[in-house]
């Protein structure tokens, strides 16, 4: 079934591993099922299984392997530092049939640009955002704050002590990110 011996060996290793600790992975999946969209942090998982946090992370990754092998249509994902079960993309057509997918609520280009700048450059003031975009951005910023995607996190030391903005945990949820480290790298800007 496996195309390369390497993959075959890996699968065997894994299934050996699973035979030994499968009960824990199944229990972990059950707990994630119960935790729902609240998710579980590494710390919570570590607490339940009496392991350290890196081991908890590894359990989630192993669970993901198990779910993939067994063809599960919901997978463990890391979102804003919590692990939770989310439907797999393959399920989307079925979800649509049952109208279980909420209608998309997309952000305007202005809001998305402003959000991208905040995400990569936080903490940042409104006027710094406007310098980069070359246009007034108060409206876009207002939308983002109202939607809970950006927030005032401090005040700058510059004259007038303007607000510094940053992204929220809901931002990570909205884009399916585990943390800010998961943002794709910004295109190289020091070319030439």
């Amino acid at each position, binding site marked *: 079934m496996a195309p390369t011996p390497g993959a075959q060996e890996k699968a065997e290793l894994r299934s050996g591993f699973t035979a030994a600790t499968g009960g824990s992975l199944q229990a972990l999946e059950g707990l994630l099922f*119960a935790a729902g969209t609240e998710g579980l942090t590494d710390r919570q998982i570590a607490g339940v299984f009496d392991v350290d946090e890196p081991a908890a992370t590894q359990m989630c990754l192993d669970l993901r392997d198990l779910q993939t092998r067994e063809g599960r249509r919901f997978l463990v994902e890391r979102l804003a530092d919590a692990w939770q079960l989310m439907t797999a993309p393959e399920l989307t057509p079925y979800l649509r049939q049952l109208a279980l997918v909420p209608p998309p609520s997309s952000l305007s280009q202005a809001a998305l640009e402003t959000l991208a700048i905040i995400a990569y450059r936080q903490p940042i003031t409104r006027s710094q955002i406007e310098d980069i975009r*070359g*246009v007034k951005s108060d409206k876009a910023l207002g939308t983002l704050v109202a939607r809970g995607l950006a927030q005032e996190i401090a005040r700058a030391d510059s004259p007038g002590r303007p607000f510094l903005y940053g992204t929220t945990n809901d931002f990570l949820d909205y884009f399916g990110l585990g943390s800010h480290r998961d943002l794709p790298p910004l295109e190289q800007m020091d070319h030439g």
Partner: protein
Amino acid sequence: MVLIDAIASKEEYRVRLQAFEGPLDLLLHLIESQELDIYDVPIARITDQYMTYLRESMEFQLEVASEFLVMAAQLLAIKARSLLPRHGPLEIQVAYGLDAEYVDDERELRERLIEYRAFKLAAQALGEQSLLWAERIGRLPLPLESFQEQPTVSDFLAGVEVSHLRDSLVRALARTKIDLDVRIVRDRETVPQRMRLIENQVRDAPTTFVHLLRSRRRREIVTVFLAVLELMRLNRIICRQEVQFGDIWITANTANTANTVNTVNMAL
């Protein structure tokens, strides 16, 4: 006819102007639509197109955001300096401060464009990501309240007396509108047998009251119920009901294995 065309064009321009997030976005569009390299396109070369675009927009008396006009002035300044006759290599001009401002202005604008483009691309990627992600859903959590404490059997059953259990069973059976057959309750022989059977059934995995029943006959329900009560009294099993009128979960009381053995020995 001409009028209609003009109106159509005006609408078109309005749409086109609104399509751009600002002067940087417009400049980027002009560069990319001509497949020019942002890293070395002479800014002067796109100035004309930028001015044409702006002029046409203004001819239709559209409100043009001040940012577009500020950028126009900047572009014109850069272009004007680039048209001054050059007297030597750029390095020399810079060394003598002849074109320093022009070089700085152009470099700064180019850097702004490159930076803006990076964020524009990131914004597009985020937009696509959010649409894909919106299609993936989770489920609501189960409230953990019922698991919040680990009540001991005595905590769990505080204040409950066996007579309450009996009364509640009687009430439950009364709902089926059939009289309780008391003769079966007195059939003591089957209860110890059933206790042994239940202990075997729960040894490996918890089960529920309903699963202990092989039929729904009242006779069996009562026997099983009495056996469960007796096992509870002997601390050999733990019973738990998560919701009112829910099924009763029955788990072997493994903490009490030693006692169980003793009890069995004593019984023998």
